[in-house]
């Protein structure tokens, strides 16, 4: 053994050892600095600096108002109840799709219905909910229920639960699908009843999914300001709405910033919890190869019946809510003159044309730029080792973790002065969307890269291909499905989100969602409905296009294998 061969811990500068990674990191960090750190820091300064010195005066003032404290509690209570109820509903739907004997078309319907809330702006359901369950609401009248107020906690809770449970559904059904079916078999063969199997195997194994879903919904509800704005009323204040009202109503940017800062704390907490949860090894990856069996054991009959009943009820209710909007968009005057008319659509296409084209342009640009950034960041984070990697990943997700209103306020504070003057431009909207919603893209790129064995890239290199060729011919084609999946959500978010951008729309650039909210405040319910329908149709078509692309790009190498004797038999 020679001492000369001993390990010498050398820390050469990254610039020398890996100049390309170095410059990639510099570029990405630079963009983080501008679009993530600067706004947050400016928000903090606005909150904590009064006349150039650090001061808790703003905080004290805000916390000193009992209504704001009530709003803080309101936010937390709402987020907690929405996350629990939404996760419960999502779990029920996921069970219905993965574990019951419902016929396939019905399962497809269940999946399709859950898409509706996802592709419509967050407040559409609250509008129709008001008409159905509000004072003198159609549904209440039909059921003969008199004194019932939807305004306040109850209405907000129902509306947000209906809006966000599809997220829970997606997260949980994914985890339910990847569970090993042999575990069910094992439990049954050891003599466990189906109930026991469900409570001791299925539920505990889906806990990571449930946890993740609860956190996701908690965050989403925490950030939602449009639903409480319409349904919360004065009895149930929540922080994002109060911050919005404080800024837009009281002209108090500082107070609004301080209030939104209060939101930061639970939002970041949830974000960290989620990172911890995801970081932990999931129970689901089961050792050894999975047997040929892919069918799960059926649930206890009573549970199946319960699940189907709940699903049926929710599906009918959601369809009913959307039917109200559809109907509203075609009648002359809501609930007075119910003659059929296309005039609202004519109005939308005449006066809303700019909003439509702006929204599409912004969504398109954000999707493209966001996807490119997501690929770069995802690739660097998954395949490379460098100093500060964890912080890098954390930063990339920061805007996603913050409530939209906070991001919007921070952006308007940060980018309204030199050197980076962006208010009123397309870029500020695009940047807000990109840095907020590319997170889904990054996650799916990372997840996809995790599944792609580095051996594939090594194989390419060992066959003499250059690294460029490897990247373009092997890595990119393989992660395209993930990128498309990420793009799909990015696009949907860009089309439907409102919380951050309500502060950022301008004379030259306006969005469909803000137009819908305007139409509502202008009493034009039919117009709002027509706008909503147009938006939903656009998103639906774009989504279908993305799904088609996804199918086209993956079908080549994910061709379903011909069903062979072995596949079925053993």
């Amino acid at each position: 053994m020679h001492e000369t061969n001993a390990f010498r811990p050398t820390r050469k500068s990254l610039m020398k050892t890996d100049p390309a990674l170095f410059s990639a990191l510099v570029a990405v960090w630079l963009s983080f600095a501008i679009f993530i750190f600067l706004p947050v820091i400016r928000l903090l300064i606005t909150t904590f600096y009064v006349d150039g010195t650090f001061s808790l005066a703003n905080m004290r003032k805000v916390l000193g108002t009992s209504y704001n404290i009530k709003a803080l509690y309101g936010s937390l209570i709402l987020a907690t109840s929405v996350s629990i109820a939404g996760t419960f509903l999502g779990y029920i739907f996921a069970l219905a799709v993965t574990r019951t004997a419902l016929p396939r078309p019905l399962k497809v319907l269940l999946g399709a219905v859950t898409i509706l809330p996802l592709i419509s702006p967050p407040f559409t359901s609250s509008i129709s909910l008001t008409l159905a369950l509000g004072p003198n609401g159609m549904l209440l009248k039909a059921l003969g229920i008199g004194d019932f107020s939807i305004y306040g906690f109850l209405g907000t809770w129902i509306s947000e639960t209906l809006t966000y449970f599809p997220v829970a559904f997606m997260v949980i059904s994914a985890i339910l699908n990847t569970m090993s079916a042999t575990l069910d078999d094992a439990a049954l063969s050891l003599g466990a009843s189906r109930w026991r199997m469900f409570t001791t195997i299925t539920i505990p194994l889906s806990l990571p999914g449930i946890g993740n879903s609860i956190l996701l919904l908690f965050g989403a509800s925490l950030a939602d300001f449009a639903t409480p704005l319409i349904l919360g009323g004065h009895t149930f204040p929540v922080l994002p709405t109060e911050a919005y009202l404080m800024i837009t109503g009281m002209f108090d940017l500082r107070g609004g910033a301080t209030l939104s800062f209060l939101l930061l704390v639970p939002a970041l907490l949830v974000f960290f919890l989620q990172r911890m949860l995801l970081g932990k090894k999931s129970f689901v990856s089961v050792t050894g190869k999975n047997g040929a069996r892919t069918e799960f054991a059926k649930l206890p009959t009573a549970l199946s019946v319960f699940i189907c009943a709940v699903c049926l009820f929710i599906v009918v209710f959601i369809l009913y809510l959307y039917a109200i909007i559809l109907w509203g968009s075609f009648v002359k005057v809501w609930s007075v003159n119910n003659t059929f008319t296309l005039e609202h659509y004519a109005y939308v296409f005449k006066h809303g044309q700019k909003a439509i084209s702006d929204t599409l342009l912004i969504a398109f640009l954000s999707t493209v730029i966001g996807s490119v950034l997501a690929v770069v960041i995802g690739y660097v984070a998954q395949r490379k080792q460098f100093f500060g990697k964890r912080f890098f990943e954390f930063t990339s997700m920061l805007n996603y973790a913050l409530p939209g209103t906070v991001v919007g306020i921070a952006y308007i504070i940060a980018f309204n002065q030199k050197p980076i003057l962006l208010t009123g431009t397309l870029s500020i909207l695009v940047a807000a969307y990109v840095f907020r919603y590319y997170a889904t893209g990054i996650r799916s790129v990372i997840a996809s890269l995790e599944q792609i064995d580095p051996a594939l890239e090594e194989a390419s290199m060992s066959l003499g291909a250059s690294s460029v060729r490897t990247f373009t011919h092997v890595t990119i084609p393989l992660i395209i499905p993930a990128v498309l999946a990420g793009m799909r959500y990015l696009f949907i978010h860009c089309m439907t989100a409102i919380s951050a951008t309500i502060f950022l729309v301008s004379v030259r650039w306006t969005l469909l969602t803000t137009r819908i909210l305007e139409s509502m405040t202008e009493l034009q319910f039919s117009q709002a409905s027509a706008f909503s329908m147009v938006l939903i149709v656009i998103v639906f078509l774009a989504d279908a296009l993305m799904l088609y692309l996804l199918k086209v790009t993956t079908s080549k190498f994910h061709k379903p294998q011909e069903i062979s004797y072995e596949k079925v038999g053993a």
Partner: protein
Amino acid sequence: MSEPAAGTPFLELRSVSKTYQLTKTHAIKAVDSVSFSIAEGEFVTLIGPSGCGKSTTLRMIAGFLKPTGGDILLEGKSITALGPEQRNIPMVFQNYALFPHLNVFENIAYGLRARKLSDDIIAHDVAMICQMLNLVGTENRFPDALSDGQQQRVALARALVLKPKILLFDEPLSNLDARLRIQTRAEIKRMQTLLKITVLYVTHDQSEALSIPDRLLVMNKGKIVQQGKPREIYDFPSTPFVADFIGNANFYDVCVISVGSANVQIALQDLEFDVSLDHCDHHPTKDEMALLSINPITITIEEPDGVLGKNQCVCMVEQCLFTGHAFSYTLAFRDTSIRVLQPNIQGAVTQFVPGAEVKLTFHAQAFHLFRIQE
């Protein structure tokens, strides 16, 4: 050749079938009216190539799949309609199927808890079985912190702790490495003898199939093709499939030259051999073409000494693979080739290099003659 089970069959399958309707017109018979029975305390292995329907059969017995036809009886009572949880027929899975969120103790206790036994009894039974299976000290660990062998033992313990009357194994050793496989299979056999439980064991590994069971069922394409004691099957394969699958035999088309009272004389190109009539699956007729199987381990290989006796010939070595306990030769054999397995014993074995000429001696009792199937 099947051995009649003593007394009432403990487990009986009567014409059990499983058909998968793939499309409206296309169906696959994964299990094709299979009948067999297992006596109490018997260790029966079901062997066959992948896709032969053996796992499907096992899953039907466990109750995970409903047969499309036939009946399954346990101690004379039909259990076909019962769900898996009502049968008390635990199964040890290929991938162990340990519950990843439960520690070893809770995994083993799972079935006991399902039976609502008291904590004292559970603690006692689990401790007992851990003792027996050398799992003491691992009770608080989670499956992902266990070695493969330990995981397999936990899976076994989880089933055995229920004191089942019958235990099913679905290729339980296929995820283990060679050495562990040998250890664990001895362990399984020991536990079975000790606890006197009835076992049905599915595998595709012939050395496993030959070593442990009292009785062997060979399955192919959804049907049982032969059943009997391992040695009977090894010595007297009833079909070319069995000869190939269990004995890795060499096969040759031969012509029947004459049929005597005890022997048949056959010609393998220019070589002539006698095959005992006991070793024919049918009564051959003169000039018939038949299929001859020769087990590679029965052929002696040695330095040619210029003298060629009966059942001997000279061939050239094409390839020699050393496997430690044996040399595996491939030799040019007339216009085809022959595989010969030469045990590496007593240091007396010479290794022949490719290109060398060697003398082969065939032993008539290793010949089997089969009807040529279309």
